[in-house]
């Protein structure tokens, strides 16, 4: 057991998987000598050498496209995209190839890659360094999407992602990269992709969230003093509807919280499925507390944009008062 930040937990998972499997290699912008702009790959270049930790040209489509080839060639590439705002140039390679290669070839060629991407707002960064595009990739069949909210989950989820036979986007909530530490086992362990975590049990209302927002939810719940069940999705695609529905059938009320804009966000999918699966149990409409339907503003206003404890508590009050 070591007391680690989320960044350290990811770094540890990378080291252990690279030790374990020499098919695993890392590529991306500044991941080498510099150890990544968030220092997630710190020390790896020295430890595993320039053949396994590769500073690539500045080209996201190239990073993902080449990784697809590496994966089809039998390796386990872990490309890093420096910020979620720069995943855009790689969108086409991810959707037209990574997501489709297995079904297109009926399993003859597969793409076991893990794309690591820092995500989300709250760190006063420049434009396009604070977005939350998880809904985009959740809509694309063939790609899995995960986002941990704690160091422990980060390590276990990343190891699962690296070992997964299919492409996984591993979103890293940069706001909590170093926000807190947690006991993380030294030895490797996995957290199954597709399994949500009940962070806190409760009978009055079900709250569903993921990534850095989970922390906002905890704050809201603690200061609200209500008996709320908090579910950390962890895997956004696929979604663990078994746990969500079981909880809502118990509580009859639900609030979903995420940073991305509301319209066509993952909250819409979860709310719809709750309605479909728990309609007769619902005492109030499922409420969404999300980013607004506008571009993530420059950082002076980012905290007004991001869902916070107050907005979450207001939602809880609305749902319970309904």
């Amino acid at each position, binding site marked *: 057991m070591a007391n680690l930040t989320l960044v350290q937990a990811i770094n540890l998972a990378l080291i252990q998987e690279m030790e374990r499997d020499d098919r695993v290699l890392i590529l991306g912008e500044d991941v080498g000598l510099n150890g990544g702009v968030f220092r997630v790959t710190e020390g790896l270049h020295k430890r595993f050498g320039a053949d396994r930790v590769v500073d690539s040209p500045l080209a996201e489509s190239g990073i993902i496209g080449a990784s697809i080839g590496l994966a089809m060639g*039998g390796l386990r590439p872990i490309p890093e995209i420096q910020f979620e705002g720069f995943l855009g140039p790689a969108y086409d390679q991810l959707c037209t190839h990574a997501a489709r290669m297995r079904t297109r070839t009926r*399993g003859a060629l597969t793409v076991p890659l893990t794309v690591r991407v820092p995500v989300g707002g709250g760190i006063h960064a420049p434009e396009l360094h604070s977005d939350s595009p998880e809904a985009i990739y959740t809509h694309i069949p063939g790609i899995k999407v995960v986002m941990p909210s704690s160091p422990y989950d980060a390590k276990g989820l990343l190891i699962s992602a690296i070992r997964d036979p299919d492409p996984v986007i591993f979103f890293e909530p940069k706001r909590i990269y170093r926000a807190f530490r947690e006991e993380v086992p030294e030895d490797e362990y996995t957290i199954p992709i597709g399994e949500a975590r009940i962070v806190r049990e409760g009978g009055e209302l079900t709250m569903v969230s993921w990534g850095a927002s989970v922390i906002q939810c905890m704050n809201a719940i603690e200061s609200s003093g209500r008996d709320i069940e908090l579910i950390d999705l962890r895997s956004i695609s696929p979604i663990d509807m078994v746990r969500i529905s079981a909880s809502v059938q118990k509580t009859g009320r639900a609030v979903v919280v995420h940073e991305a804009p509301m319209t066509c966000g993952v909250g819409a999918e979860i709310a719809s499925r709750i309605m479909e*699966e728990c309609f007769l149990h619902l005492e109030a409409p499922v409420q969404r507390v999300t980013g607004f339907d506008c571009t993530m503003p420059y950082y002076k206003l980012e905290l007004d944009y991001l869902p916070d404890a107050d907005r979450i508590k207001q939602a809880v009050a609305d749902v319970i008062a309904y």
Partner: protein
Amino acid sequence: MPVETVFETSIERVSILDEHGRFDEELGADLIPDADLIKLYSHLVTCRHFDEIAFKLQRSGRMGTYPENRGQEVTSLGAAYALRKTDWLVPCYRENAGLFWHGLPMEYVLLHWMGDERGNEIPDGVNVTPLAIPIGTQMLHAAGLAWSHKYRGDDAVACTFFGDGATSEGDFHEAMNFSANLDLPVIFFCQNNSWAISVPTRIQCSAPTLAQRGVGYGMDCIQVDGNDLFAVVKVVREAAERARTTNRPTFIEAITYRLGDHTTADDARRYRDQEEVEMWKLRDPLIRLRNHLDGKGLWDETRQGALLEQAEARVVDVVKSAVEIEPLPASDMFANMYKAMPAGLEEQARAMRTCSLGRIPGETVDQAAT
């Protein structure tokens, strides 16, 4: 010096068996043994026939859109012949001749255009990627595949094929740049066939040659007569040797021509002159090679007749196996989305209705979602 020259370069063009049938002994001697030459010619004739039949299948409504290969067969075949089975071919969609030579079963290409994924279920040991529909995107996969071999320490290379139009896509640039700067054993084989559907090559590149696209990457680049089997074999051999020994990529511009419409959905008369087509018909690579074989006394009408019969018989079988393949069950669309099917998808597959509707109202979650 206030103004000094810091870089100089030039692009060369290789031709061995030219359009007038002239053969350059110096470059051409023992490039291809006669026995192989006959095999290659026979393969070309079979592929040409396959192409004609594929076209007819579309016209008769038994196959979807099909892009004729006619006139370009020698480019991919010459490359495939110059490479090893352990090397990768990363095609676009006009490389039947090369893919078949490399081991892709002929019926696969028909199945692909018949809208059947079984046409992409590449057999083990055949190092070919599926026909690429999104233009320009496959070259990065070639870079990655080549990289995977370099990483493992074997000397296999990847050869990727694409058109003149594809060189306008950003992914082309990124693939060239990755390969050059990370030293990846890739051969970039551009088939400049003068057209990208209705758009002439000058709209894709206003430079005098496409070959010089490689200069900006410090990459070796060369132009070759793409309808000259000998020249293609020579330049690809040299590129492969370079890749195997130094991991340096090469950019090849092969000058060829699309004798047919872009695809069966196109009508080229809307945008190009028939004279141009007629002029290029005279440069048909098959005729050129046939004349060369005749000249060497390696071929004659009887052999040609026998070959055509074989080709027809072969293609009949191929069409049969593609047309008569057992129907795909609708559930097949779910089968290969993931190695292990997630619960929600499994439920959609079971009901063949969206998950939203797949559940009998009132059915409890646990039955449904697990």
